[in-house]
Structure formats: structure tokens, C-alpha cells
């Protein structure tokens, strides 16, 4: 049904009279809303005025999942856009679609655009590169998970408002202390699978799946039923009983619980900074994620979330030249620096990071460097380079479902994680079968 509707809409759109203009039009489908949508439009407008050969046309296509679905349907109907923004969990699906997408490193080489992969932050690009380091999609908005804490609530509870707990045992103890002084909830976490399973595993240098988390082969199997994770989830479930930890939903819903002062600490995306900055009626700070000191190698580095730009296949060479020019435009230090400073997303080039540092931005805005430091402090291991798992959208939901049964007190952590592994592996095998040519 959806495909037919999209197809029909496209047919109407194509039939509409188009003014004949000189520049080559390039469609850019995205999933950004409000302030971020304005930013997308501004970037496109700036590019369009900076040169005359090409015109980027940004089109909002709904949520991440809806945008991806629209792209898939359009490709099947032969009307794919040139550039499409795909969330990080869709990476494996896009990668497996050989022929439907054009790898970025190939695009840049064929267009003859200067392109040095070493100019980009490896912590960001590794997620979107092949095992041997070739960049497949262009990172657009990348974030990582960090801790935010409510300084006012800490002060009221008699805690040091300028110091966030560094380890998980400290975090849980602080959360209990907050509860004891009347705060309704000590800690919550948004994007539960992303923060508590995916980031947690990278941060503790433990594998989420075999084959370097899937980066080195589609036959990877999940390994999240390990003792470290089982203990961690059990700890959270115990804390859920007295609300020192309070689960608040699978995606961004828990951010509301932090904003309204209900929860004094939250682990969520570094890109939530903008929302907290404009909405919080209290003073808050940003800190690295906590870790278990008894896990060897922790803390390692955290991984990214967010989305990247994929180039669709089957377009004309001159159109690809335009896309390549646009990516060069996007890589400019000044533009990246501004994006990073305005949004809480990560800079994607080393030069933009250095420029932000040199400008004194991090000194004036304490905490804003935390996401970058947390991701780049150590050389990534095969447990912390990124994830490449097919059907990851559903695997995340499966993990969330199983965690919900644990937090509701209906199951222990270990059997729930066993169940997630079993069902997740079924989905991985199904993806493997479906994408075999």
C-alpha cells in the first residue's frame, strides 16, 4: 500500500510542470525536523548560491524509518533521490544493497574530487566504512551517548553539584541518595538498547556480536548474554524497584523525565544538548558515561549514533559530480565547526575539531568536548569500532522488549538476554538469507 501511495505521489510530482533551469537538480531526502530542518535547508541554500552548476533540493520525508522506507520504495519504482539520510541502524541494510547505492569513496574518486579519508575523524567514519576502511556513506549528524546531571537536584540532595559520579557503583549509590532526599527518580536512560547495551558494550570493550560486531562478516552472532551485561541489567532492575533507576520508554521519552526534573540524571545522546539547553529550568552538566571499574579495559571508547548520507545508484555521471562537490562543501572546516557548536552533534573532520578547540569554545562551554573526548580517547578495538548488523532496527526492539520484562520484574536479566540473543540471531540469519544474491 505504502509503496503504491508513494509511487502515486511521485507520479503526480513528476507530471507537474517543471521550470527549466540551468543547474542540475539533486534531490536530498532527509528526516530532520524543527531547528535541524532549518539547518538542512540553510546548508542547501548556501551550496546553491556558492556555485551555479548544481541545485540541491532538500525534501523532508518523515521519521528516520519513514525516510528509509520512502527511499526503498522510490528505488523500487525507479525514482530514488540522489542523496538520502539514513539512520545508523540502517547501515547494514544499505550496505547489502549493492547496486542500489554508490559508495562515497568511489563517488569521490570518479568525480575527481579531492578526498582524503584521513581528514575525517576515524571514530565517526569507521561506523560507515568497510572493514578495510573505505568510506561508504557520508557522516552527517553523528552523536554519542553521554551522562547529563541536574546540578540543582544534586545540591539539594547535599551532593557536590559540580561532580558527576564516574563509575556505575557510584552512579547507583548517588541515585539512591537522590531518592532518599525525595527526588522521584535518580537515573533514567533514553534509547535503552543504544545506551545500555550498544554503548555499554563498546565502553567496556566487550563484544556485542562476533566478527567485530558484524563489521567483518554477515555471519556474526550476538553475544549480549555475557556476565558483565547480565550483572549490569540486573543492577538496573534492582534499582527500578525503588525508582533510583526508572525506565521511561525506548527512544527519547525519558528526556522528558529529565527535563521536568523528575529524574536527576540521564544517559542519552549528546545531541539532546540543544533540547536541554532551551528547555531545562535548572543548571545541568555533562559527563562521560560511567563504567564498572572491575571490567578490564573499561573505559574504552563510545560509539556513534545519528545518521549518514547515502548516495543512490543508477544516476548520471554529471549528477554524481554534483553530489561529490556537495560532500566537499559539507566537509569545510567552518561549516562543520558551526554545526558542531550549534547542535551537540560531533564534528566529522579533524580540522573542524581542532578549530573548535583553538577558538576556545570548549573552555567557554564546559562539557561540550566530552562527546568527542569519550569517542577519541583510545584507539578503537574491534569491540568499539561500530556495529554492522542486519535487521538492527528490529533487534533493538527485541532487546528493548526483553529489557522491559526485566524492569517490570517479570524476568531475570540472564534469561531475558538469552532470549534476545536467540531471537536476534534468527533475524540476523534471515537478513543473511534475504540479501544473498
Amino acid at each position, binding site marked *: 500500500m505504502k509503496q503504491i501511495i508513494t509511487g502515486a505521489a511521485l507520479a503526480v510530482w513528476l507530471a507537474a510542470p517543471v521550470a527549466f533551469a540551468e543547474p542540475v537538480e539533486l534531490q536530498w531526502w532527509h528526516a530532520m525536523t524543527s531547528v535541524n530542518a532549518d539547518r538542512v535547508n540553510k546548508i542547501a541554500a548556501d551550496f546553491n548560491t556558492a556555485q551555479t552548476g548544481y541545485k540541491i533540493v532538500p525534501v523532508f520525508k518523515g521519521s528516520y524509518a519513514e525516510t528509509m522506507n520512502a527511499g526503498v520504495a522510490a528505488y523500487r519504482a525507479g525514482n530514488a533521490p540522489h542523496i538520502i539520510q539514513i539512520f545508523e541502524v540502517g547501515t547494514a541494510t544499505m550496505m547489502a*544493497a549493492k547496486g542500489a547505492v554508490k559508495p562515497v569513496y568511489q563517488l569521490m574518486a570518479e568525480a575527481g574530487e579531492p578526498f582524503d579519508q584521513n581528514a575525517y575523524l576515524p571514530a565517526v567514519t569507521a561506523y560507515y566504512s568497510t572493514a578495510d576502511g573505505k568510506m561508504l556513506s557520508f557522516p552527517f549528524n553523528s552523536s554519542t551517548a553521554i551522562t547529563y546531571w541536574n546540578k540543582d537536584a544534586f545540591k539539594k540532595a547535599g551532593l557536590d553539584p559540580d561532580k558527576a559520579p564516574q563509575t556505575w557503583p557510584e552512579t547507583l549509590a548517588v541515585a539512591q541518595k537522590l531518592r532518599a532526599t525525595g527526588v522521584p527518580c535518580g537515573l533514567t536512560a533514553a534509547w535503552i538498547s543504544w545506551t545500555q547495551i550498544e554503548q555499554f558494550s563498546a565502553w567496556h570493550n566487550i563484544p556485542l556480536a562476533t566478527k567485530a560486531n558484524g563489521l567483518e562478516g554477515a555471519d556474526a552472532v550476538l553475544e549480549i548474554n555475557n556476565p558483565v551485561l547480565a550483572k549490569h541489567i540486573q543492577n538496573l532492575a534492582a534499582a527500578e524497584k525503588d525508582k533510583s533507576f526508572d525506565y521511561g520508554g525506548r527512544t527519547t521519552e525519558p528526556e522528558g523525565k529529565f527535563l521536568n526534573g523528575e529524574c536527576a540524571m540521564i544517559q542519552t545522546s549528546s545531541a539532546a544538548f540543544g533540547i536541554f539547553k532551551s528547555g531545562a529550568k535548572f543548571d545541568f552538566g555533562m559527563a562521560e558515561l560511567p563504567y564498572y571499574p572491575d571490567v578490564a579495559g573499561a573505559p574504552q571508547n563510545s560509539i556513534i549514533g545519528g545518521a549518514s548520507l547515502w548516495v543512490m545508484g543508477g544516476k548520471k555521471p554529471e549528477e554524481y559530480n554534483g553530489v561529490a562537490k556537495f560532500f566537499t562543501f559539507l566537509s569545510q572546516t567552518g561549516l562543520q565547526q558551526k554545526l558542531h557548536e550549534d547542535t551537540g552533534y560531533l564534528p566529522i573532520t579533524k580540522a573542524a575539531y581542532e578549530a573548535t578547540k583553538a577558538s576556545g569554545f570548549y573552555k567557554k562551554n564546559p562539557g561540550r568536548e566530552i562527546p568527542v573526548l569519550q569517542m577519541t580517547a583510545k584507539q578503537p578495538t574491534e569491540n568499539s569500532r561500530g556495529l554492522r548488523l542486519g535487521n538492527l532496527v528490529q533487534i533493538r526492539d527485541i532487546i528493548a*522488549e526483553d529489557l522491559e520484562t526485566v524492569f517490570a520484574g517479570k524476568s531475570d536479566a540472564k534469561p531475558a538476554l538469552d532470549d534476545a540473543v536467540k531471537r536476534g540471531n534468527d533475524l540476523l540469519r534471515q537478513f543473511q538469507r534475504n540479501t544473498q544474491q
Partner: protein
Amino acid sequence: MPQLAVTVVFFFWPAGQAILQSVQREDAFGLSTRFVGLENFASVLADPHYLASVEITLLFSVAVASLALAPGLLLAVMANQVTRAGTLYKTLLLLPYAVAPAIAGVLWLFLFNPSVGIIAVALRRAGIDWNYILNGPQALLLVILAAAWKQISYNFLFFLAGLQAIPQSLIEAAALDGADRRRRFWQIIFPLLAPTSFFLLVVNIVYAFFDTFGIIQNVTQGGPARTTEILVYKVWYDGVVALDLGGSAAQSVILMAIVIALTAIQFRFVERRVHYG
């Protein structure tokens, strides 16, 4: 003829597509397609979550239909007796029907959201641990209430029309024979309303099966742990979010078969026993 064309384009073609996709396995982009026979159906029917979804859907639709029919009838009977400002009451009672399911979902979400909902806060003050984000039965109750609330208006309208079609003379005759109000309702009015009730039962069940997607999507997204995942939501999730077109199409075909069977059974056996006045 145009009607036939519309039927073919909007009903037979998509249905044919669904049947075709249900016997294929495909990657999202359609780059590799394999014929797999009934494998998709086998895996759907062997999936414990699918069977759980069937149970949830049955519970959900029976609950929604009864919670929407009974108050609808009650309100219609009461509104039918109002002599002053009747139109005002009727208009007000019809308002919820003008609200789109998605909006209805958001309205109920605002009332019951554990963090910000007014009623949720009141419930907590009263000592009830209201948290449908983790508590499955509470989540199911919430979507049932939201879905039923929206449908009460529709039922009210049809019941009211049904009531007004009953000849006043019949009721007066019964009154002269000494039947009290209660008896007049159960022995005269209610049987005469049977055709309306039957029609509404079918409409309400179809509504609960298919039109409540917006409410589920906005309030619970099928959670927690799939306790509110009705069949239609699962079809959408597997097809649109998970891009598993084969599995989703197989579920659509099963759903299609269920609806055809339901309709056939109801019209064949139940309708015969309905007394058309």
C-alpha cells in the same frame, strides 16, 4: 464501470500484490527475489509473537466493541428522552467522532502519560502505581479506552436513529398494557434495535481490527514487550519498519482471510437470527 475500475485498482491489485509477495523472500530493495512457497506462512504461524498478537487482537476488539456499544446505547436512550436543548446534547456527544484516531491517541496520552499526564499524576497520588510504559495490562487498558471512547459517538448516532425509527404507538400500547419502563426497553425497544446493533457490532469489530492503528502508534507503539501489538500494527511494523516484505505480506493475507471468513459467518448465520422489524 468506473466503480469497477476503482475496485480493481484499489482492492484487487493490492490484494494480488500481497499474495504475490507473501510467497516470496526479498531484500528491502528488491535486488534479489526468491520464490519460497508457503515458507513465510509457516514462519509466521510458528512465531509465538504472532499467536500472542492474535490473542491480543481478539481481546482488544471484543473489549473495544462492548465498551463502545453499551455506553453508545445508554447515551442514545437518554438523549432520546431529552426534550430541551436536545440538539446541543447530540452535537456534543458526536464530537469525539470528528477526532482522528491519531489525535485521540495523543489526547489520551496527555491525560495518562506517567510523567506529565494529569490523570496519571492523580492516580499516583491515590497510591496507584500507574506506569503503562512498563505495565502491559495498564497499556492495553489505556488503548482500549481510547479506542472505545472514539467509537461511542458513532454508535450513539446509529442507536439514536434506530430509536427514533421505532413507532411511538408500539411503546404506548405496551405502556397501556402495564409494562414498566424497564420491560418496555428490554421487550420492545431492544429487540427492535437488533438490526442496528448487529450492524454496529460488525462495524465496531472492523474498526477495532483496522482503524485503531493511529491510537496504538501514538500511545504505546505496540509495547511494552508487545502487549498492545494488534495484528494490523504487526503487519505495519514488519513491513514498513522492519522491511520484511514477505513476512508482512503473509500476515496481510492471513488477515484478509480472517476478515472474509468473519464477514461470511456473520452474514450467513447471525443475520438470519436477527429480527428485522
